[in-house]
């Protein structure tokens, strides 16, 4: 049975919500339900993800939404790798007849509360990292990023091109936290390094907020308010030797290829599509090098060419592959990739407004940066 995303909901994105995470989750879910043309009584499944207890359990959200019985529920302890994976799991629950309408949400006070960027991930590998000050996620992604740039012949100019292209998209996005903060080459280069190779503009902007989608069967989605965003395929992959914990990469072979390299063949095959069929992309972007690495890993451009694609304007709205059309996590706000999924849905449904992608037939969406992650191919209906 084919499945689709039928509705999208957001809260405002702010630096200080002044609200509980539970309240934010509830609002985003209510908005998604209403957007789909459903009522809370229609929802019988819910999943979400959190890092180090920065969110609330699904049962709490179900309770404050006044939902009836849940047939499917999952609280994943996962970071940015999760969003597409959880939509895929919701999709499986629906396809096997276990549930009919499933909410997938992410909620956090990521700026005013616990920020992932400064969290400690002690795990079993942490004893080798914390004492020497190798202690922030930015450092881990940067370690891979530098090796990737070196082996693919790319550099700071390519990172800059990603940051600039996405900030330009954000200018057209009323929700983007950095919509009023233009970024130029001069202003980018004037920024000091935080963790070399990254400047502030190479990093996501932390945010308080929530967003959610409603997943259902394609036949049911066709009867609802908006055009269905068809889930043509989804995949999760953790590469071999993914390490003892989220910060342990010592057994990982190749820092220039992340999970996208490993899941891409299955993803396209399951959808009956190829990378050349993709008309726009929403790529998980905790840092600029992640966009470059993941686009190449997904086969959206040749190895070593993602920077050139950005520099030539190829990821702009009028380019050959509009990418991160909401400004991405870099400029819209860091909701751990759930907003990456939501933007893809809005674009497929033709609701991008000033930032609508002209050719919105097939979207490649990714979730994650390093050893593990997930991806989806979303398409217009009746392609």
């Amino acid at each position, binding site marked *: 049975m084919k499945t689709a995303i039928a509705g999208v909901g957001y809260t405002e994105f702010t630096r200080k919500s002044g609200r509980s995470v539970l309240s934010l989750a509830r609002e985003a879910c209510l908005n998604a339900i209403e957007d789909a043309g459903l009522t809370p009584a229609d929802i019988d499944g819910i999943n979400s993800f959190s890092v180090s207890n920065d969110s609330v359990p699904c049962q709490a959200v179900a309770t404050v939404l006044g939902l009836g019985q849940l047939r499917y529920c999952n609280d994943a302890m996962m970071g940015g790798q999760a969003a597409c994976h959880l939509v895929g799991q919701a999709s499986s629950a629906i396809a096997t007849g276990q549930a009919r309408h499933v909410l997938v949400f992410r909620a956090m006070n990521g700026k005013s509360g616990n920020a992932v*960027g*400064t969290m400690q991930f*002690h795990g*079993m*590998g*942490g*004893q*080798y*990292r*914390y*004492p*020497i*000050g*190798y*202690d*922030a996620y930015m*450092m881990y992604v*940067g*370690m*891979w990023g*530098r*090796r990737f740039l*070196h082996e693919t012949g790319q550099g700071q100019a390519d990172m800059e091109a990603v940051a600039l292209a996405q900030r330009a998209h954000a200018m057209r996005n009323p929700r983007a936290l950095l919509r009023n903060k233009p970024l130029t080459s001069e202003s980018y280069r004037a920024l*000091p*390094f*935080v*963790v*070399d*190779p990254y400047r502030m503009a190479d990093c996501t902007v932390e945010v308080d907020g929530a967003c959610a989608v409603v997943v259902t069967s394609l036949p049911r989605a066709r009867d609802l308010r908006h055009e269905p965003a068809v889930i043509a395929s989804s995949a999760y992959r953790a590469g071999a*030797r993914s390490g*003892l914990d989220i910060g*342990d*990469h*010592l*057994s990982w072979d190749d*820092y220039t290829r992340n999970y996208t390299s490993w899941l891409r063949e299955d993803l396209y095959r399951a959808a009956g599509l190829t990378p050349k069929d993709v008309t726009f992309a929403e790529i998980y972007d905790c840092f600029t090098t992640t966009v470059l690495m993941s686009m190449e890993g997904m086969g959206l451009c040749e190895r070593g060419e993602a920077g050139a694609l950005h520099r030539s304007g190829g990821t702009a709205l009028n380019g050959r592959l509009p990418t991160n059309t909401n400004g991405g996590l870099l400029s819209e706000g860091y909701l751990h990739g759930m907003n990456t999924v939501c933007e893809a849905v809005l674009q497929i449904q033709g609701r991008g407004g000033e930032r609508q992608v002209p050719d919105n037939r097939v979207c490649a969406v990714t979730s994650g940066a390093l050893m593990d992650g997930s991806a989806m191919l979303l398409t217009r209906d009746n392609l």
Partner: protein
Amino acid sequence: MIEPRLAPQRDIESEFYWQGLENGELLLQRCTHCRKTRFPAMPGCCYCGASGCEVVRASGRGRLYSWVVVHHAFNAQLADQVPYAIGTVELEEGCRLVARLDRWQDLSHESPLTLYFVEHDDWTEARFAVG
């Protein structure tokens, strides 16, 4: 250089490794089945899945696979140490570890590295000299 005021949270698997550093040795596990060395210490081989391993003493030589330079201390205790470089070291024995480097500028990929030891109050650190 000011001492970091953090000590490693040692466990049953890693105790031999930290003891080894205190004795001036970098000790690694090598799988008795597939012969690959691995890091960190773990109860099963990540390459072949086998259970048995032996402990070997590393030469202390390696090459620089990648690095980051930290300009902003995320842990306030380390504010007086920035900037500092963390390198991913590819040891001669075939496995990798992460360590502080003795400098943070003029670094290049594949630079030869040499192990040395830095004594702290209750632990010994493996650090690498570049070039």
